[in-house]
Structure formats: structure tokens, C-alpha cells
């Protein structure tokens, strides 16, 4: 057999081409370039005059021309290559390379060619397309493809199929990556990934914004370097890496290049398909905007309402709508006159301090601060979020506002400032709620008659009084909590009939309030009576409180009077906080302020103050309660510990006046001689001992004179 050099060269070229395919086809990054390269090289190596590549359309039965070479494309495009018909169907059925005489194939007759060789492209076992080469060239003219060509094109098609599958996979991976990147870039959560070595290899746009620096500053750097200012974040990462567990932290404040950011952060170990650790995913949710939104909202409504609105915006109706709400008005009584005695800064400070305290209570009971009008507050319950407990919440708010004011005023009184006194009015009814205003300024508010009436009730309320309308009382679920007193109906501007009103007081103002009040008075005096008072201090006050309880029970006073006695005992020397001079009078002023704010009636306040004033030496009790407190105040002079207690009194007096031993004995003698117990109990229990003490002192005086 003789083989020509040219034939050998052609075989060599074929082998080289095949090797080229093997080496180079996987270097293509997109399908069109790959297919064109396959086609062109196939034509070249097989001496085909033209060719094209068909690929299945995943959505139809039609195969599309994905590459063509050296062929008039117009007639080619007019052929429908249906995988269920014609030569495509035939070759798919055969499943291997086929040489065709086009003259005998009706389907390909539009192509200006005589011969074809068609090699299937396969993905796994499925035929997904064909390489079609046309008209084998020779110097003698065109010829049909032979078995050798068939082997060659089959080998090329096999390589091409692999390369095509690879590139399809690559394209899918790139699409998935692109999709993933797009998702990552568009989500509001910051996502950072690290590799096994802790180096950051991905940062999305949100994370970039949170980190407050361009992502190129972080990529490739170890997280320890990137987050060096945030030990808590690094520790969390280390914990996640060590335990290979999900870790998270809420409301973590981080410092990213000078910008403090609060985030919710989580760390998840990144595992490969063999469950091996290959890095960590850090997800962070920037709470700054949420915080801003919350802080803006929280100026007007409670945190709970803000959270509810943020969870479900549908709850929020800012458009105009009619709804039933409870409106509370409160204002400071005589603030104008009060402010005239203050410098402007003090007026502002006073109002701000007062509002801070009151608004805290308002939000505690889900009230919406509608307006601050000078020294007045307008609060709405039941809007913008409807609340079935709006009336109850308004009453609880009013009661607690009064209680807060007591402590607030204590501080003011200690600092020599005038106490703040308020009245409260509450009404319930239909209002129009929504954003009301102009396009330049729009505020959420409620308007309507019910609002006006609430304001009128506030004006009608005396200092320390909570006045409510019938509609509030009718809608109050926990009526048992309050003492409710019907008042004379009031005439209101714009209303033809007088409006029925009630005054309410929380029942806890009986026992629970007394106990709380006693605790507060004890704490106040413990902290504020100067330590130089050896006698007039908290120990004496507590001794008097114990004594009134003892005498009260012995004298069989009512349970309520026993509480009044204790209250007076706690207050009888409170004036020492400011000065021993006229301390009873000062104590009465304080008692009036505090008790008024707590809703005590004037009669009761006068009763308490009567007891306080009765203890002024010389004692002047006018009724049993005053007699009891007077005896309790000087209980010690008829008791065994007289010497010890009087010694404390001497110590206190000696700070201002130098008193000799004999002078002190004479003072005591005169005091004891002039003193008398007023109650039967004290007379029975203390007189004998007091007289004995008097004798002892008299003896000491005589002994002193005998010595001298």
C-alpha cells in the first residue's frame, strides 16, 4: 500500500487539530465562540466547504442554528429543524455520525450543497445538537464524506460535546453567581464572607455602607485587621469558627472607621459539600435607620406602638378617619405667675424636666403625645393604633402622673424651688384622626368636640384633681381600681346642657399609697435631714410613728385615722430638712403640696397639718388625734431610755449653744414640770415614770447646789 506524503500531512493535520481541540476547547468562556471555533476547525480539517451547528432549544422542539461557516445563511434559516421530524429525528434515532447525500434528502434541499456529514453533540446520553459539514472538497471537485471523515468528526463532536457541557456548566455557574451577586447587592442585610484563613473574600454593597469604607479596603484582609476596633465582633467570629456554630448578637454597637453603628449581627460557618469548614458568613442588619425612625416616632408614641407599627404597617392609619379615642389634657396651674419669678433658662429647664417625667408615664400606657401647648400636654389613647383599653390607660396615666409629680416636687422643694401643680381632664368620644396640616407642615393629630371637652375638663379640675366625663367612666373596665365621685355638672362653652363630670382617685390611695408615701417620706428624710441633728433625725421620726400606732390603737381610733396619724408623724419634723426654725410651718407647706398632688382633700390636709402644728412646743392639741401625736412626740420622757434620748437632744442643742450640766438639768426640770400627757393611755403608762425622772433630775440639781 502506497501512502502519499500529502495524505500523511493531512492525517498529521487531523491529529494536530484534534489535539488542539483537546487542549483549547476548554479555554472558551462563552458558547457562541466555542461553537464557531468547533465549526471552523472541523471544516478546515475535514476539507468541508461549509458547515453549521444546530442546538436544541430547551423550550421548543426546534433546533436553532448556533454557528455557521461559509454558507448563505438566508436559505438555511428558512429550514425548520424539528427534532421530531425529518433528518434531525432520523439521526437522533440512529444516535451516531451520518453521511448524507443531500440530493436525496428533501429536508435539506434548500441548502446549496451536495453532501453532508452530520455528527451528534451529546450531553450525557442525550443528543442536544449536531455539527453539520457540507461538501468535502478536493481538487477534482466536491465529494461525499467517507468513513475516515466520520471517525474524525465523531471524535471532534465528542470533544466538542464535553467542551460545550463544560461551558454550559460554567455559564450556569456564572448565572448563578451573577444572580447571587445581584441578590446580595440588593438586599438590605450586610453580608461579608471570609475564607478558611479568615480573609475577607466577599462584601456586598450594604456591608460596604455599614463598614463605612470602600470594599477594596477589606477584600483579602484578615477580619482581625478589618474589625480591630470591634473586639465583641471578633470574639463572636472566633466563637462561631471554634464551635462551627451559628452565633448572633442583637443591638451590638460597632465602630466602623469613626462611625458608630448599631447592628444585629450573626455568624454562620460556611461548609462545603463534605461539611468541611471553608469560611464564615457574617450577616449584619444596620439598625441606625431603624433607630432614627424609632427615635423620631418615639417622640410622639411609645416604643411598643413604634414596634407594632414597624412590624405591621397596615395597623397604621394616617389618613383621616373617624374613631373613638380617649383624650387627656393636663396643665400646670399658675405656671405663668410661677415663671415670672424665674429666669428664662429656669422656665425652660422646669418645663423640660416636668415633660420628661410626664411623657415617660404617657408612653408607659401607650399614649400618643399629640401636642405640647405651652405648659399643657394633650395625649391621645387609642390612636393611631386602636386600643380597647384606651380609657383605662388614660386613667392609669393620670394617676401615675400625679404620683411622679410628688417625687418631682420633692426635688424642687429641696432645692428651694416652687412645686409644680397640675390638674387633669379626660374625655372619650369620636374624633377625626389623621395627618392634618399643609403640604409644608403636617402632623398627626385628632380633632373634634371630644377634644375640646377634654380641654374644658382639664380647666375645671382643681390642683391634684382628675376630672373625667361619663363616657370615660362608662368605658373604664377596671372601675374597681378607683374611687369615683360624681361632681356638679359643669356648663361648657358651645354645649347647651351642663356636662356630667366625675372626680376619680385610685383606690391604692388608701392603703397602698399610704405605705408607698411613708416609704417615700422615710427615704426623703433619711437622705435630707442634716446629719448634725442627733435627736431630730429619722430615728426620732420612726419612734414617733411607732408611738402613734401604739397610742392610736390603745385610744381605739379608726383604721383611717391611724393612717392619718402615721402620715402626720412622718411629716411632723420634716421641716428640719430646710430649717429648725418654724419647722412645723415648713412641714405643713410641704405636706399641703405633696398631699394635694396625691389627691388628698383639703379637709384631710388640714387634719394632717393640725397634727403637725400641735406638736409645736408648747404643745396645743385640740382633738384626740392631735393629743395622740403630741404624746407620741414626747413619749420618751416617760420611758426608761429617757437619759439616752435626752442626751442626744443635748448633743444637738450643744452644737449651737454651750450648755452647762446644771443648766441642762434645770431646762429638763422646767420642761418636765410644765409638760403633761394628754391621752388616757399616756397618762396611765408614762406619768409615773416621768415623775420618777423628774425626781431624779431634781435630786441631781439639789446635789449640785449642795456640792457648790
Amino acid at each position, binding site marked *: 500500500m502506497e501512502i502519499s506524503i500529502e495524505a500523511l*500531512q493531512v492525517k498529521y*493535520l487531523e491529529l494536530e487539530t484534534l489535539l488542539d481541540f483537546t487542549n483549547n476547547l476548554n479555554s472558551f468562556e462563552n458558547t457562541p465562540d466555542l461553537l464557531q471555533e468547533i465549526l471552523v476547525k472541523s471544516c478546515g480539517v475535514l*476539507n468541508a466547504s461549509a458547515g453549521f451547528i444546530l442546538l436544541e432549544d430547551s423550550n421548543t422542539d426546534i433546533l436553532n442554528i448556533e454557528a455557521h461557516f461559509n454558507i448563505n445563511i438566508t436559505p438555511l434559516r428558512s429550514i425548520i429543524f424539528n427534532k421530531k421530524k425529518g433528518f434531525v429525528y432520523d439521526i437522533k434515532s440512529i444516535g451516531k455520525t451520518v453521511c448524507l447525500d443531500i440530493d436525496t434528502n428533501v429536508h435539506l434541499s434548500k441548502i446549496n450543497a451536495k453532501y453532508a456529514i452530520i455528527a451528534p453533540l451529546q450531553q450525557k446520553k442525550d443528543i442536544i445538537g449536531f455539527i453539520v459539514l457540507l461538501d468535502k472538497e478536493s481538487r477534482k471537485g466536491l465529494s461525499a464524506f467517507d468513513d475516515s471523515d466520520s471517525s474524525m468528526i465523531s471524535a471532534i463532536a465528542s470533544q466538542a460535546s464535553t467542551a460545550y457541557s463544560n461551558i454550559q456548566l460554567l455559564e450556569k455557574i456564572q448565572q448563578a453567581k451573577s444572580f447571587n451577586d445581584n441578590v446580595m447587592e440588593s438586599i438590605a442585610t450586610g453580608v461579608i464572607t471570609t475564607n478558611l484563613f479568615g480573609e475577607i473574600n466577599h462584601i456586598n454593597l450594604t456591608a460596604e455602607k455599614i463598614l463605612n469604607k470602600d470594599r477594596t479596603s477589606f477584600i483579602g484582609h484578615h477580619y482581625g485587621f478589618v474589625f480591630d476596633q470591634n473586639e465583641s465582633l471578633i470574639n463572636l467570629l472566633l466563637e462561631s469558627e471554634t464551635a462551627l456554630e451559628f452565633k448572633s448578637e442583637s443591638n451590638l454597637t460597632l465602630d466602623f472607621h469613626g462611625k458608630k453603628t448599631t447592628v444585629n449581627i450573626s455568624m454562620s460557618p460556611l461548609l462545603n459539600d463534605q461539611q468541611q469548614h471553608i469560611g464564615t458568613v457574617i450577616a449584619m442588619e444596620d439598625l441606625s435607620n431603624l433607630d432614627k425612625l424609632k427615635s423620631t416616632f418615639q417622640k410622639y408614641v411609645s416604643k411598643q406602638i413604634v414596634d407594632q407599627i414597624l412590624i405591621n404597617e397596615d395597623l397604621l392609619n394616617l389618613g383621616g378617619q373617624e374613631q373613638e379615642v380617649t383624650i387627656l389634657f393636663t396643665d400646670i396651674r399658675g405656671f405663668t405667675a410661677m415663671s415670672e419669678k424665674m429666669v428664662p433658662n429656669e422656665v425652660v429647664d422646669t418645663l423640660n424636666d416636668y415633660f420628661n417625667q410626664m411623657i415617660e408615664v404617657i408612653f408607659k400606657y401607650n399614649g400618643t403625645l399629640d401636642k405640647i401647648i405651652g405648659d399643657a400636654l394633650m395625649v391621645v389613647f387609642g390612636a393611631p393604633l386602636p386600643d380597647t383599653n384606651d380609657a383605662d390607660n388614660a386613667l392609669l396615666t393620670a394617676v401615675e402622673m400625679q404620683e411622679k409629680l410628688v417625687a418631682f416636687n420633692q426635688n424642687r422643694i429641696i432645692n428651694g424651688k416652687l412645686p409644680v401643680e397640675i390638674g387633669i381632664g379626660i374625655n372619650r368620644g369620636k374624633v377625626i384622626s389623621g395627618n392634618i396640616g399643609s403640604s409644608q407642615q403636617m402632623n398627626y393629630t385628632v380633632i373634634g368636640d371630644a377634644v375640646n371637652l377634654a380641654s374644658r375638663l382639664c380647666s375645671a379640675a382643681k390642683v391634684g384633681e382628675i376630672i373625667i366625663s361619663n363616657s370615660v367612666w362608662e368605658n373604664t373596665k377596671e372601675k374597681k381600681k378607683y374611687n369615683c365621685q360624681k361632681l356638679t355638672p359643669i356648663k361648657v362653652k358651645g354645649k347647651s346642657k351642663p356636662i356630667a363630670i366625675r372626680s376619680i382617685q385610685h383606690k391604692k390611695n388608701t392603703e397602698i399609697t399610704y405605705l408607698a408615701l411613708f416609704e417615700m417620706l422615710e427615704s426623703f428624710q433619711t437622705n435630707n435631714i442634716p446629719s448634725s441633728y442627733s435627736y431630730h433625725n429619722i430615728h426620732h421620726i420612726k419612734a414617733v410613728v411607732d408611738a402613734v400606732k401604739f397610742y392610736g390603737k390603745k385610744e381605739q381610733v379608726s383604721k383611717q385615722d391611724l393612717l392619718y396619724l402615721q402620715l402626720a408623724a412622718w411629716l411632723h419634723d420634716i421641716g428640719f430638712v430646710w430649717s429648725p426654725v418654724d419647722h412645723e410651718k415648713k412641714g405643713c407647706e410641704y405636706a399641703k403640696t405633696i398631699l394635694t398632688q396625691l389627691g388628698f382633700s383639703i379637709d384631710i390636709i388640714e387634719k394632717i397639718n393640725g397634727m403637725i402644728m400641735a406638736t409645736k412646743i408648747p404643745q396645743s392639741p385640740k382633738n384626740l388625734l392631735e393629743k395622740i401625736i403630741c404624746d407620741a412626740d414626747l413619749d420618751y420622757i416617760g420611758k426608761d431610755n429617757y437619759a439616752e434620748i435626752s442626751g442626744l437632744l443635748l448633743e444637738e442643742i450643744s452644737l449651737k449653744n454651750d450648755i452647762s450640766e446644771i443648766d441642762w438639768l434645770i431646762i429638763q426640770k422646767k420642761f418636765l414640770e410644765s409638760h403633761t400627757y394628754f391621752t388616757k393611755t399616756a397618762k396611765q403608762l408614762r406619768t409615773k415614770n416621768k415623775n420618777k425622772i423628774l425626781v431624779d433630775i431634781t435630786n441631781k440639781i439639789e446635789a449640785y447646789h449642795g456640792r457648790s
Partner: protein
Amino acid sequence: MSDFKTQVKELNEVIIIETEGYLNNEGGQKVYDICIERMNLGSRKFLINLTGTKVVNSIGVSILIEVIEKLQEVEGKLGYYNMAPIVEKTFHIMGLSKYSSLFKTEESALAEF
């Protein structure tokens, strides 16, 4: 069927044929015809600029060998430049580089001619 195109220019007695498309039987024949025509007019030096030819088959190469044989008869010569790597490789394998010159650029080709 073929979309093979040529442009011919003469520079310093060198005929430069610029090709575009598949240098196969048809393309090769066009080149052959141009060369014979110009040889008959007295030209002896031919350069083929293969910038627009990305693929060549063995038939195209064998036609070029025929052109070389004709030129050898009149002591003429043929050269090529601006070849795609696959074309250059094919020329080497088919032995074309033994009988004709391969250049990188027109300047280097003209300098040799």
C-alpha cells in the same frame, strides 16, 4: 456558497493579495487565478495578506503549492503575512513553509522581497 473575497495591490513590483474568508478550494482557486493572471503580466513576487482568513483547509494549501510550482518555473516567489496561529500551523504541517516565506508583518515581508 463561498464568501471569499480578495483585494489586490502592487507595491514595489510586489503583488499583494489580501484575502478574507475560508481559504478552501474556492478561495484557493481565486488566489491561484489572480497569481497566474499577474504572472502572465510579468509579476514575479507575490505576498498574501491573510489578515481576514481565519481558517484554511488542505485543498486551499494544495492550491497554494500549485501557485508556488508555477512561480518556481519563472523564478518568482510567494510569501504570506498576518497569519492566524492555526493557519500558520497548517502551513507548517502541510510543508508550505519549506517553499515559501512566512512573515509577521507587511513591512518585514516587503523588506525581504
